[in-house]
């Protein structure tokens, strides 16, 4: 039998627009996979020549589900450029609200986006119509898991409320700014937050973790499907006071099972298969970029970031590996398990930070926007390593650049044809029913892809120096 092309477009239940194109051989095995994002907005162009203090609020608008992470990374970048260190209390407030947004993300990802591909829900819209291939979970267990789904509506909202307590509103909160935070913790807020945290902990213990186990019980083969990643890449998560380079969850690079220190100058972006007209294999901070929709061979608006030429995976599974809490081989279900374990860890961390808050200490350090300057903000976001680079000239943004976690995970192949982590995870997968390739969605959603974040363009004539992280 001849090869057959299969497209899943739209790949629904992800943040942003995404398509998966695969080629199946005669035995319905995936021999070629393409992660294609048909979606571009150009946020970095929009940021140019604006007041640098606007960047945290504007970059939040890149992504509705991880807005606080973008606001936080943009604040870190401007803080470095302005040479300001936020007070320890402010860092605690920021970490609590980012942590709360993590919980919202992880709960919503598992129940609303990921789980429905494994478990049959009610036979009514929006749950149906749907693929019906390979649904193994018996009705009684499905009902239990969907009880978790409906609880998740309340609990993910509660996680958002915890973030809003310190941020005014979410998505797109106001509480993280360059210089620290803006909401002063007081006994009532701390008490209320502790109450929310305890409810979230019960939900994770009573529903989230058991429901992940239930799916694992019926789909054990997915612990060996969807691997293929070459290594891990992480900026850690939650900067610590007073040295924000130190993080509560450690970061690093894992290549061939060995941990290395991160060297940001080793990042190159490949554009052979992306709709951009620029020189390939450049450090992300270099060069100009023009969109070229008609470029032959190109299939996505996402570039391909590579570390020392390797396509590395980032996300909760990488963070849990560096934290030494979960060291399974990457696969569809091990990513899901790592995300659930991270949610459980974050609940404890939030509680710790809330109790460490000091109502009488400041949360914000005033500063002047520098005439000239540059800064980098690297942060562990919900989906992995997020970096914001800013260059300021005449108190305005001269150039701005963002590399998101989903650019690492969901990028296209690079110049040498090396597939991205998502594409590698799909290669060799046996598809049961090519009319309903349910396996593809299950695998790619385990990365918690966010194509809203991944599609950017970088522009500007000047180059940034390379950055080293200690």
């Amino acid at each position: 039998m001849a090869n057959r092309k299969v497209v899943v477009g739209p790949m629904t239940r992800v943040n942003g627009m995404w398509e998966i194109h695969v080629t199946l051989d005669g035995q319905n095995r995936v021999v070629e996979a393409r992660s294609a994002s048909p979606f571009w907005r150009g946020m970095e162009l929009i940021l140019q020549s604006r007041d640098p203090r606007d960047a945290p609020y504007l970059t939040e608008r890149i992504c509705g589900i991880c807005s606080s992470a973008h606001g936080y990374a943009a604040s870190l970048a401007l803080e470095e450029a302005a040479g300001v260190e936020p007070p320890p209390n402010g860092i605690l407030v920021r970490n609590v609200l980012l942590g709360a947004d993590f919980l919202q993300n992880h709960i919503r990802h598992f129940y609303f986006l990921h789980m429905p591909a494994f478990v049959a829900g009610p036979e009514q819209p929006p749950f149906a119509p749907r693929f019906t291939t390979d649904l193994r979970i018996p009705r009684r267990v499905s009902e239990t898991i969907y009880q978790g789904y409906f609880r998740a509506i309340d609990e993910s909202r509660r996680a958002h409320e915890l973030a809003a307590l310190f941020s005014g509103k979410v998505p797109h909160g106001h509480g993280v700014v360059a210089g620290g935070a803006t909401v002063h913790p007081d006994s009532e807020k701390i008490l209320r937050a502790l109450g929310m945290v305890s409810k979230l902990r019960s939900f994770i213990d009573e529903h989230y973790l058991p429901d992940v186990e239930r799916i694992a019980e019926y789909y054990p083969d997915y612990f060996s499907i969807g691997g293929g990643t070459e290594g891990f890449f992480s900026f850690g998560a939650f900067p610590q006071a007073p040295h924000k380079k130190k993080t509560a969850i450690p970061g690093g690079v894992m290549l061939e099972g060995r941990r290395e220190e991160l060297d940001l100058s080793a990042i190159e972006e490949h554009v052979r298969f992306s709709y951009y007209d620029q020189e390939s294999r450049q450090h992300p901070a270099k060069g100009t970029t023009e969109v070229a929709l008609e470029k032959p061979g190109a299939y996505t608006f996402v570039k391909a970031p590579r570390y020392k030429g390797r396509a590395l995976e980032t996300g909760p599974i990488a963070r849990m590996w560096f934290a030494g809490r979960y060291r399974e081989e990457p696969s569809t279900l091990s990513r899901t398990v790592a995300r659930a374990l991270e949610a459980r860890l974050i609940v404890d961390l939030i509680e710790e930070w809330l109790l460490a808050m000091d109502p009488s200490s400041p949360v914000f350090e005033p500063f002047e926007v520098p005439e000239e300057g540059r800064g980098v903000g690297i942060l562990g976001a919900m989906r992995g390593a997020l970096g914001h680079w800013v260059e300021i000239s005449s108190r305005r943004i001269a150039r701005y650049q963002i590399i998101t976690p989903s650019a690492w995970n969901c990028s296209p192949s690079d110049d040498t044809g090396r597939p991205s982590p998502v594409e590698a995870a799909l290669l060799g997968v046996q598809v049961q029913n090519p009319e309903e390739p349910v396996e593809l969605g299950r695998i790619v959603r385990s990365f918690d892809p966010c194509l809203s974040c991944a599609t950017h363009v970088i522009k500007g004539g000047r180059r940034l120096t390379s950055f080293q992280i200690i």
Partner: protein
Amino acid sequence: MSLANIFLPHLAQALGNEERPPVIWIEATTCTGDILSAINAVDHDLRHLLSSVIDLRYQQLLMGGEGSVAREVLEQAMDGRLGRFLLIVEGTIPLRAGGGFNVIARRPSGHGITPLEAVRELGQRASHVLAAGVCASFGGPFAANPNPTQSVPLHQVLDRRVINVPGCPVHPDWLWGTLTHCLLYGTPDLDSFSRPTLFFGQTVHDLCTRRQFFDNGIFASELGQPTCMYKLGCKGPVTFADCPRRQWNGHLSWPVEANTPCIGCTSPEFPDRMTPFYARLPGLELPGVRVSTATLTKLVAGATAAGIGLHLAGKVLTGRLGQTYRKERTPTEIQEIVRVKKILRALPPGCGTRIESRRQEDPRSVTLRHLRKVKARGRGQESRTPRKLEERPPEQGDRPARGERKV
């Protein structure tokens, strides 16, 4: 007998079987923040909405279908097989390259369905069209200067009424409240920007929980201070929304409560005319709160008639009243201040701030004057005729004049 009755009866019961209007929700060029905010509703939460209010057929983030199954649902709605439905669109509509900067579904032929194509088809068949969030309503952040994708708000590509429910993101109460109004009572009262006056009828400034600090001239000098955010760039005086009264995320807080300025995210000119976010508004010569010479005269006359020294009225006007109030606490002074305040309250809002505008002239007052004109025009006619889609070359696109932003 529907499958729901034999499969998962428990859930079928939970979701209800009564007639609910079909809803198609299109994510155009967006951050997905509007649906994520919409499911933050507290009592009318997602479960209640799905079981009793709407029959959500197409919603990229929540639907069970994917790939061909999802596309089929979309095509049914686009070619009329679904019949009438309610259309909600979040995100702005890119026009550059024929709309090719976003593809929301792909046909087997390889043809990509763009948001432009989808909403123009769906818009003809929908009973009501709601723009959820500031992007679909007015363009929003992704249509900001230099508008790289040549994106336009929804009403510019449809020849019919679009109800704008702005906000970045949209507040769940605003969206579901507007939708429910459409279902039960038809189109709600709209302002000149096609926003429901139910939620966007008053300025944030008029409803502000910290209005007293403004009136008393107590202004925050840096972020994080619990007073009036006006001097830190608060756009509350030009922003129509009920955030201070309604509050966000379980009615828990809102941006000013978080000690930060309102950034005007429900305004037609967000974000371009609302940035820099921390730049102070140039006086308050604004729609709805404009002060004429006549009222100023009236104020001075009133103050004199009340027997109050002009210096005190001046202090009230220039915003130094707060300090006066704190320093000199003689009973006579306090009595006089209370009387001045009474007079001020009886006057149209905003007259105490006229003096502010003399201090500096800001180029953006041009915009504000424009805003006022549009507002005035809106009073003359009930509904706004949507502009037709214009084909424009990309280089002339939506690039607003921005005098202070020269690269």
